[in-house]
């Protein structure tokens, strides 16, 4: 029997984690935007009866969609592991990679498990008192968008590591995209205060701008992690270049610097 090529590839673990990352983010987008329709989020100004109607309008979607997250949500650890690996490949202290790992590992429970639990509990008993349904609705959306500190500090740690790194693991512009991601966690804070307007949890700033930044950020790091795997030489010095013209455009100022 022919041995699968992947088994002999020294980068097999990196590729497995990368493909699992793609699967996780695809699942995440499909569940939140299509199956449960919890993104874009419900309106923060809904009265209790409107919240009951909101739950009724997506009863099966909430229960099936979040069940999928209950089963497969742990795959989020693969992107955390890859990013931790990328930081360890940099010329910075391991304190950066371990901080990133622990911060993002902790983020999973308030960051996405709480919304799954709150929305499932809300959807499973539609005849519950409308006031309590709204309590669950608030818990779901505010825990999801309002779990801020882990992503704020995590992004700043990754940013600092990239800026200090001499091994050219990530392009410097991505450090500033990390800063943008960190800033989204700052501007989302007013969603704990406002029920309407640009700063409410569904507002132009607290939701629309944030989701665009997060989408760009996630797409960029998934692409850059793929480049990292292709360039990985398992050494400790600067990562070699990717033999393509496009790569030279990504690293314009640093090509040729040893």
């Amino acid at each position, binding site marked *: 029997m022919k041995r699968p090529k992947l*088994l002999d590839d*020294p*980068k*097999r*673990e*990196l590729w*497995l*984690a990368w493909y699992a990352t793609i699967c996780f983010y695809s699942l995440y987008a499909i569940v939140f935007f299509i199956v449960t329709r919890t993104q874009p989020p419900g309106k923060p100004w809904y009265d209790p009866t409107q919240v009951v109607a909101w739950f009724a309008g997506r009863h099966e979607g909430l*229960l*099936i969609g*979040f*069940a*999928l*997250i*209950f*089963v*497969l*949500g*742990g*795959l*989020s*650890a*693969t992107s*955390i*592991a*890859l990013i*931790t*690996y990328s930081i*360890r490949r940099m010329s910075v202290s391991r304190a950066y990679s371990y901080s990133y*790992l*622990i911060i*993002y*590992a*902790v983020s*999973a*429970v308030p960051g996405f*498990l709480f919304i*799954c*639990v*709150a929305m*499932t*509990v809300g*959807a*499973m*008993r539609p005849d*519950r*008192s409308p006031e*309590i349904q709204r*309590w*669950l609705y608030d818990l779901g959306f505010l825990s999801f968008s309002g779990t801020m500190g882990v992503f704020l500090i995590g992004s700043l740690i990754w940013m600092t590591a990239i800026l200090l790194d001499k091994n050219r693991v990530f392009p410097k512009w991505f450090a500033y995209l990390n800063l943008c991601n960190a800033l989204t966690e700052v501007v989302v804070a007013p969603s704990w205060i406002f029920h309407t307007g640009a700063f409410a949890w569904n507002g132009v700033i607290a939701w629309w701008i944030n989701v665009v930044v997060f989408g760009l950020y996630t797409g960029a790091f998934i692409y850059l992690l793929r480049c990292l795997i292709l360039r990985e030489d*398992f050494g400790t010095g600067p990562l070699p270049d990717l033999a393509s013209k496009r790569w030279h455009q990504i690293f314009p100022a640093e090509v040729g610097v040893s």
Partner: protein
Amino acid sequence: MSRTTGERIIFWALPAVAVVWIAAFLLFPGFVPPMSPKASAAQVAAFYAHHTSRVRYSMILLNWFCVALIPILMLIVERMRLMAHRTPILRYCVIGVAGAAPIVFLTSTVFWLLAAFRPYRSPDLTLLYNDLAWITFTCGVPFLVALCLFIAVAIYLDQQAEPVFARWVGHFNLIIAVALVPAGFAGLTLSGVFAWNGFLSFWVKNVAIAVWLVVMAVVLGGALQRHREPAEALV
């Protein structure tokens, strides 16, 4: 010269911790038999009013000791250092889920303790805490599923003459991951095998976790015997 690395202390603490877990499981009156999701708010409120002390003591025990799973998982992570892997990615994956897995149990104990804290509040609120506790406890399997998958992949990729864990341990972890899957769907129904008190979501899931602990403890014990000083073998 022999040196104490402390791994044996963690390992032999497991049977003691397991006794506490089983005791807490049996002490909680809502587990044997599992409470029905079809119970009315009045019935649920009456349950907490009648069994206040047992709910409190059992959940305080679980709250104290559920996190004791983490050092055990770290022993597995240390064994993974000896696997024929090229990168630490799979260890990072396991560390990434090792914290969240018991924190899910911890969160459910908080909801159960809240339900028992004021059993004479409005029954609708006690029903809410009870639902939050049961859904968190039952559906909160994503990190355990991923843990089993990561360990299985790690074992399959450990291709050396004397692998750290035998290949069947990988197959075993895949089977446990599959056994945990139905529990994720417990929110979909209030009766039947998928309900939180059902055959698949309660019995299969919890027995799978218990069997996983016993089997992994046995193979971990064997691996500890074979490789006494992993931390020094690889720097």
